[in-house]
């Protein structure tokens, strides 16, 4: 463990860097995922969504990136677990009797809790959608002579259950708070803190963390109420 590269990545700053880089990759993934999901709102009986889902689950390049994405999620989760334990140890055995939350924002202090909520949601919805698509049996529909799995019908089924819609919306709330701190924080960790572009990072980061989860959450709401 004494070559420069492992010393770099196992140092406190190296681990922070990995958290930031994997986090930013997952942010990019959210954009791709959302652009696919938004097709559910098209009034075409799920046709464009199904074609998109079929493409995503069969294209070799997309599947490679998907495996990479899973690796990054796992890395992000395991590193944060390790860092959380390490950081708690750094506080020592005796903890403060009184703490004030005045000097930092709530989301920044609860990234672990928010991340756990998001992770639980990821697992649940992977089971219902990704799992069905890859390992389950999804009914097929015929578009112009081509058999395509009808994932939209699976989505329809789950989004008609009130508890599922509630879980979905709640989880997107957790994701929003996670991003509220995480997006801007990642750039700070990368060392990108400069008056020339701090404003831009702040604006894009905060807007992203509101708009993207809101759009994700809007889809089950709209489908549940048939808007």
């Amino acid at each position: 463990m004494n070559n420069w590269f492992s010393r770099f990545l196992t140092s406190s700053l190296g681990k922070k860097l990995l958290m930031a880089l994997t986090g930013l990759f997952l942010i990019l993934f959210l954009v791709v995922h959302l652009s696919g999901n938004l097709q559910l709102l098209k009034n075409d009986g799920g046709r464009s969504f199904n074609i998109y889902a079929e493409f995503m689950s069969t294209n070799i390049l997309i599947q490679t990136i998907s495996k990479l994405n899973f690796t990054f999620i796992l890395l992000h989760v395991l590193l944060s677990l390790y860092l959380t334990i390490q950081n708690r140890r750094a506080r020592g055995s005796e903890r403060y009797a009184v703490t004030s939350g005045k000097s930092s924002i709530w989301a920044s202090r609860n990234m672990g809790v928010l991340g756990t909520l998001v992770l639980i949601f990821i697992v649940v919805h992977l089971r219902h959608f990704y799992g069905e698509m890859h390992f389950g049996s999804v009914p097929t529909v015929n578009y112009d002579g081509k058999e395509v799995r009808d994932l939209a019908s699976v989505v329809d089924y789950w989004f008609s259950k009130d508890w599922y819609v509630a879980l979905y919306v709640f989880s997107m709330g957790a994701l929003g708070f996670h991003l509220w701190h995480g997006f801007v924080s990642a750039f700070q960790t990368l060392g990108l803190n400069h008056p020339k572009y701090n404003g831009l990072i702040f604006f894009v980061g905060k807007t992203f963390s509101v708009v993207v989860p809101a759009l994700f959450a809007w889809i089950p709401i709209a489908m549940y109420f048939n808007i």
Partner: protein
Amino acid sequence: MKLTLKIWRQKGPHVKGEFKTYVHEHVSPDMSFLEMLDVLNTELIKKGEEPIHFDHDCREGICGMCSLYINGRPHGPLQTTTCQLHMRSFKDGETITIEPWRAKPFPVIKDLVVDRSAFDRIQQSGGYISVNTGGAPDANEIPIPKKIADEAMDAATCIGCGACVAACKNASAMLFVAAKVSQLALLPQGHPERKERVERMVAQMDAEGFGACTNTRACEAECPKGISVAHIARMNREYYTAMLSSYELPSKAGGE
């Protein structure tokens, strides 16, 4: 003013401590926080009790010796050092909880006194510059832009009190180390050791057992000198650059 004080009492490094409650009846709003404790200690000594131990030195806000975690905030409710905090910042009849800095690398020595020599060891590992002996160089011989000089000066105002560690939920020392790295990285005099410095100081910070930064920015909000987390970003840049481009630190170089 009359105050109720809940103060952490601990006889020694390896003894279990506890809170003790004191009612302080003779507090003037014009007293500094430390003077208020001085008066309480005088009363305790008169009663034959052990006075409360706390760190202090210059009482001018420049030495970094005073500490105290007051009502959940390092150096109390104002963004200043405890010695510059006055009792007018509190209300009559208020209960004030006073704790030592809590961090594994800052073990309690007695009562409210903690051992901050971890900071000294970080500083010794790289927070210096090499200067040749000889005649004194002319002032202003090396051109340094005003903005850079100001930025370096902002970092240099760090008094090493440890409020950043105390405020951080991770007990991270990033703001302290960043200020020390930044100050010298910005100036030409610090450039010969630039890469080696950040590598060594970060390695020492990790070895001391400080936590990692999660960018909550609590340190910046509580720092009595208002040092910005922009310095942490600079330290990150310095560290990444150093790790990717420095020559390996010699372990057993010849010539010794």
